[in-house]
């Protein structure tokens, strides 16, 4: 089991490195990125400043080397040696920005390192992901199991019908409804303004502040998970070993939850792992509707500003999340299904 985990992690590291290289090559394929970032009223001086600051004048392999080195030992901005020396010579040493390892770059438009921006955005995004994930898994699986048990009857029909409606409604419709009506017009719920979770006492305000966007996001996923769970449980309940479990005289509850749900878990874990990883890269629409400054909002802003270092940072974080969740899913698999376990 230990060797299995180590192997999965090593493969994961290789995948992250390959992915960084691919992302890097893609973004630099189109000439000097500083031109896009410089904007409409670009002067040659400003262009030269951005180019020198971020080191866009170097060759792509050199830049990749510098970026990778930055990940391991950190790096200083401006990247251009002459610029740095000039700053030191003129007594502006404090304008040299130190970006500690693992350095993901520097955002010229925000005047902050990418790491600082990501850490700041991680709070709302992580909170949103964890809370909505918990809600949708709990209710999605529960309702899905119920629908499977009452297959073809009224409850099942209502569930299947409403999941279709919820799934078809865009997130911004549900989100806007919650924000404009539930929070603002009817004042049924305090206006959601993100409160970070710094200490245990913060838990209630934090949860209150995150609930509306989390439910918005959860509803969408829940609709899908109800359908998944229903299908997986129905499939599982048609297996021969379910007949055996009934023939043993087990109560229907045990048949369902111990024997039926267990085998439906395997595909659910895969889906849940990947969906959760996807959320870690930011829920762009939900964050926009509720004006949460998370990864999604950061991505929108970086895209508008053509802020390349931030975009690269976001892609790397998102892809790493997917790879890490994949490893976790693999480990969970081995835990759930004994046939996957490596023989002793």
């Amino acid at each position: 089991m230990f060797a299995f985990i180590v192997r999965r992690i090593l493969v994961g590291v290789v995948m992250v490195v390959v992915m960084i290289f691919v992302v890097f090559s893609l973004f630099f394929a189109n000439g000097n990125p500083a031109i896009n970032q410089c904007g409409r009223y670009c002067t040659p001086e400003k262009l030269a400043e951005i180019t020198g600051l971020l080191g866009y004048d170097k060759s792509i392999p050199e830049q990749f080397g510098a970026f990778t080195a930055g990940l391991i030992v950190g790096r200083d901005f401006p990247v251009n040696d002459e610029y740095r020396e000039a700053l030191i010579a003129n007594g502006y040493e404090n304008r040299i920005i130190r970006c500690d390892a693992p350095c993901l770059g520097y955002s010229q438009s925000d005047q902050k390192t990418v790491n600082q921006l990501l850490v700041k955005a991680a709070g709302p995004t992580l909170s949103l992901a964890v809370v909505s994930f918990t809600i949708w898994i709990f209710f999605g699986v529960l309702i899905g199991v119920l629908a499977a048990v009452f297959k073809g009857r009224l409850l099942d029909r209502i569930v299947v019908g409403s999941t279709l409606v919820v799934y078809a409604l865009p997130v911004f419709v549900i989100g806007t409804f919650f924000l404009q009506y539930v929070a603002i017009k009817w004042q049924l719920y305090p206006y959601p303004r993100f409160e970070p979770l710094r200490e245990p006492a913060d838990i209630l305000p934090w949860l209150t502040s995150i609930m509306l966007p989390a439910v918005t996001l959860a509803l969408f996923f829940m609709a899908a998970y109800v359908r998944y769970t229903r299908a997986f449980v129905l499939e599982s309940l048609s297996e021969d070993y379910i007949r055996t479990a009934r023939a043993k005289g087990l109560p229907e509850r045990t048949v369902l939850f111990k024997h039926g749900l267990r085998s439906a878990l395997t595909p659910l874990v895969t889906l849940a792992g990947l969906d959760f990883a996807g959320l870690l890269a930011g829920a762009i629409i939900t964050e926009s509707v509720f004006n949460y400054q998370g990864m999604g909002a950061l991505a929108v802003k970086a895209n508008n500003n053509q802020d390349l270092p931030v975009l690269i940072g976001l892609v790397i974080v998102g892809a790493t999340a997917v790879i890490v969740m994949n490893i976790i899913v693999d480990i969970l698999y081995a835990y759930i299904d004994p046939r996957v376990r490596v023989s002793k």
Partner: protein
Amino acid sequence: MTRPFLSVEDLVVHFPTPDGIVRATDGLSYTLEPGKTLGIVGESGSGKSVSSSAILGLHRNTSAQVSGRIWLDGVDLLSLSDKEMQQRRGKDVAMIFQDPLSALHPYYTIGNQVAEAYRVHNEVSKKQARVRAIEMLDRVGIPNPGQRVDDYPHQFSGGMRQRAMIAMALINDPELLIADEPTTALDVTVQAQILDLLQDLQREFNTALIMITHDLGVIAEVADDVLVMYAGRAVEYGSTKQLLTAPAMPYTLGLIQSVPDLTSDVDEPLRPIPGNPPSLLDPPSGCAFAPRCTFKHLVDPPSLPDEVMPELEEIAPGHLRRCHLREHDLSKLIPLAAEKVEEPV
């Protein structure tokens, strides 16, 4: 008059489907005493498994419509509540299935699954149930049971899995055991071992056994009585000796003749029963076997089997059949049988 230990009376199992009602079992009756074995024979889809599952109440909570009486030890199982039936399942009546790999849950250890059957009907600790499970695994001939108890089904061989299934079924010492083609999925050599084991255990616990099979060899070896099913109905019922030596219904004869004879020439073609079983959605109004029967022209008048369903009639003490032929001894009719040799398309 005392009722037999197990008495199935006029059992009907119908499945409503969008295309109509599937008459999987229609008016089935038989009896069985403790320590005795009833063999139920028939082709796939003849209603063997469906009718036996009804004894365990496995059609409850499905769309199936079950009616009739199933008396077990003086109690009509069909009149019990779901809860009462659940408490009897696995305790008074147990069942083992055809494919032990798919019948065992892949995610739980053998020991867990065997012990679970014991714990659900007995107030015992997990530890006691485990000890009992190891005891049973040992009894069914699993070597080194103390260690193998923690193995998963995929770590067992086919024969071992079926032994584990038998251990699971017999752990509560049931009065009636239903074995649904227990050897079909196994190697021939393992088949014999499993049959021997079942017979040993049956003698030891004085269990009544229903052996569902399509293998007449199995019937000859283990059954006291045989029930031949066709299209959801009993077509012949009697002692194993009566049925195998003097089959009185053309379908039974066809089954016997289709078994290849080891002493005959290897080049001799197999003798299958021509045609296919009828659809249970829309069974023929007359004798269900008539379209495939090679003796049909000997009935007077020959159109009778297509129009009228023959009743079960007793032709000798304890020997019943459902056939329009006057003659009981089919061997006399074999030379007159229409040789309907249908080339496979």
